[in-house]
């Protein structure tokens, strides 16, 4: 091997030029990543609040069985088919976990583990049997193919006035061809999914909030908590299957949990947490993208590593209960109090 494992960092090559000459490749990837992390993160917030983070893990794995089932039955990867397959897989997972948990003495954690590994294994086997017929393989399952997002494009007609207005912008030629706006299909789909997620959360904010924190109150207010649960699982399946193509089955779990977990460390107000989630999504998108450029590795993996880096920063330097703040407070208390008090208090605790 003639190349060093960690290549030299080149500001011009790794940070500037993706945004100048390679903009038509960069923009779809970055937008896609941002939409994926945002939609996943927003849903993930509710998973964290409901202590269902691992159900999210389970659904993101078993969606593969739904996708593989659709591939076997229809022989292709049409969007509607995938959405239906994912929905079915999500609901089946939720029901199976509940069934195993209720009708045997296996605890919920083991029930989750059994269900999703079985469905995931089924999915991998089906995909292997159909290998060569569709462009879906094991690597795609594991870490997605976000780098291919810009290749699949859709043309949208836009008003002439907008075309003229955008003509003055630099590099407009990359995105407007023949009076039509050219966008990556994946980005367009993910943007729509993200909008739907935001709209649904905005519309059912109260129901989600109350049923997440206090199911008894939800019941007395006439909110069907069970219904909310299944609706959330269905929405989760849709988001996961849309994100699947670009980040894979396992890294989706990180997108679901990391933004929310980071935000939860920094605030206790749900609206603030939501805003922080979006901020986390934007930051980890940019950092992760350039990290992948620099290290020449999987973009999806680098996105998660960046998101994890942000989490660790929040963990250490968080305002309310960061590790550093806690340590400083503890030291100050020990210095300020007379020695015998600390001694006696340490005896009593």
């Amino acid at each position, binding site marked *: 091997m003639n190349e060093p494992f960690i290549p030299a960092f080149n500001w011009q090559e790794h940070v500037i030029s993706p945004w100048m000459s390679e903009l038509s490749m960069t923009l779809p990837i970055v937008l896609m990543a941002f939409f994926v992390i945002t939609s996943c993160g927003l849903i993930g917030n509710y998973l964290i609040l409901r202590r269902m983070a691992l159900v999210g893990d389970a659904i993101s794995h078993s969606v593969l069985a739904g996708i593989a089932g659709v591939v076997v039955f229809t022989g292709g990867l049409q969007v509607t088919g995938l959405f239906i397959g994912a929905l079915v897989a999500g609901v089946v997972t939720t029901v199976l976990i509940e069934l*195993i948990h209720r009708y045997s003495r296996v605890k919920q954690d083991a029930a989750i583990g059994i269900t999703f590994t079985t469905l995931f294994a089924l999915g991998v086997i089906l995909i*292997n049997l159909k290998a060569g017929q569709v462009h879906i393989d094991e690597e795609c399952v594991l870490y997605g193919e976000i780098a291919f997002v810009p290749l699949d494009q859709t043309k949208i007609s836009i008003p002439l006035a907008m075309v003229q207005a955008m003509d003055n912008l630099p590099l407009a030629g990359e995105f407007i061809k023949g009076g039509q706006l050219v966008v990556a299909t994946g980005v367009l789909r993910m943007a729509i999914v993200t909008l739907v997620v935001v709209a649904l959360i905005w519309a059912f904010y109260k129901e989600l909030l109350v049923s997440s924190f206090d199911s008894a109150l939800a019941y007395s207010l006439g909110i069907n908590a069970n219904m909310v649960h299944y609706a959330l699982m269905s929405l989760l399946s849709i988001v996961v299957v849309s994100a699947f193509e670009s980040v894979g089955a396992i890294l989706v*779990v990180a997108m679901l949990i990391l933004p929310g977990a980071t935000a939860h460390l920094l605030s206790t107000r749900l609206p603030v947490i939501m805003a922080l989630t979006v901020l986390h999504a934007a930051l980890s998108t940019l950092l992760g993208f350039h990290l992948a450029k620099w290290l020449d*590795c999987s973009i999806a993996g680098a996105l998660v590593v960046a998101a994890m880096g942000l989490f660790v920063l929040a963990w250490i330097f968080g305002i309310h209960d960061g590790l550093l703040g806690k340590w400083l407070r503890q030291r100050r208390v020990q210095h300020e109090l007379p020695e015998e008090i600390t001694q006696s208090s340490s005896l009593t605790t």
Partner: protein
Amino acid sequence: MRYGFLFIFLGLLVPEWVWAERIGDISETSAFEQARRFFSFQDPAVRYALVGSILLGISCGLLGSFLVVRKMALFGDTLSHAVLPGVALGFLWNMSKDPVAIFVGATLAGLLGGAMVTLIKQTTRLKEDTALGLVLASFFAIGICLLTRIQNISTGSKGGLDAYLFGQAASLGRDDVILMAIITVLAVLLIAIFYKELLLTSFDAAFARAAGFPVTMIHYVLMLLLAFSVVIALQAVGVVLVSAMLITPAAAAYLLTDRMHVMLLLASVFGVTAGAAGAFFSFMSTNLPTGPLMVMGASLVFVLAFLFGPRHGVVSRWWRRQSRSAQIQRENTLKAIYHVLEGRSFEGEGVSLRELAEKRRETIDEVRGQSRELKTHQMATLHEDGDSVHLTPEGWQRACEIVRNHRLWELYLTNEASIAPDHVHDDAEVIEHVLGEETVRQLERTLNHATKDPHGRPIPGLMDLKLGGQIMGGPATVPGYGRTT
């Protein structure tokens, strides 16, 4: 218990004689030939794959049992994903698939992941599930970054690192199998030596702590063993699905037994079965990875245990409930026949369906069905074209028992629990079917062998059970009543 471990230990020695000379590369294509080649065990790749699968089945089954009873199943999932960066770093150590370097790297990464989960739980408000999912995905992402980086800088020489993702038992080499054997023996020995400590800390940590056992130490030893067994299973099952080999066989065993050592044994057997089946089917079809096939095998075992487990299985329980309610129904019919006979002071031998129907307030057809049910269980015979029911000795005995249980319980509730006599019937109606002989003796002693229930009706005694209707004034010569022995 000890014999169980001895058995496993001896099983580990079997691979030593299986290692024979290789027969060369034969290229049959038919399924039968492939199967024959697999079962002749002459291809070293087959032997390594099979022995490896068996070893991983044993170690995963043993450690998984402790995970399942400690409710830490998903901790195993997190640990198994967290080893991926360690695998990549172990590979980077000298850019080759060196089993020892990868083993050390993966174990360290797994333990680091486990420690991070604990740390997040202790120092933040985040709950356990969030911490587990977070560490799982983050470590996995680091691993993916490292692996893709390795792929990009050294095309071609990554030497089967892909096998670590979904597992390829065929890629196991002799060194891998030896390492697996050592670790499995170590795990079996440690579990055998510290069995009591592990058992106690798994089921009652507070008591174990109070009794002076080093609970935290045992926990960490178990984590280390867990990391070991995950790492040795990696190459055959793959990072993604190792957790299934930990959880699923153990959960299936958990459904079948209440004894921990039986569970350990069963889980190992299930693990071995699933592992060997996975290796076989993967060998039969060359483009299928081993891991998913093993997992499907384990899941099949779980589904069977879930449905047909003798005590906790869904179908078995449903069947028991059905036969139980059928039995209660039969006993109620017997009781009604007794009441009809009692109503006419045990005059006459048979009870007509009409009388029975009036007693039970049901239609003739329903009563006829119930009588036939009694007949199939040899509790009664039907006479006069099926219009009259005669009890057999067995039927008479059970009828007396049920009525006795009912009346004894009524008397007990009235005398000892001071419940009004008109409130005791419903309770007795339920309990009459489940009172055992032992309890009945105790009730009789407590009630001083009373002969009348609170409503003044006689309680059938032992003599009635034995001698049929004779004592009660029933005709002694009636066939079916008198039980002469």
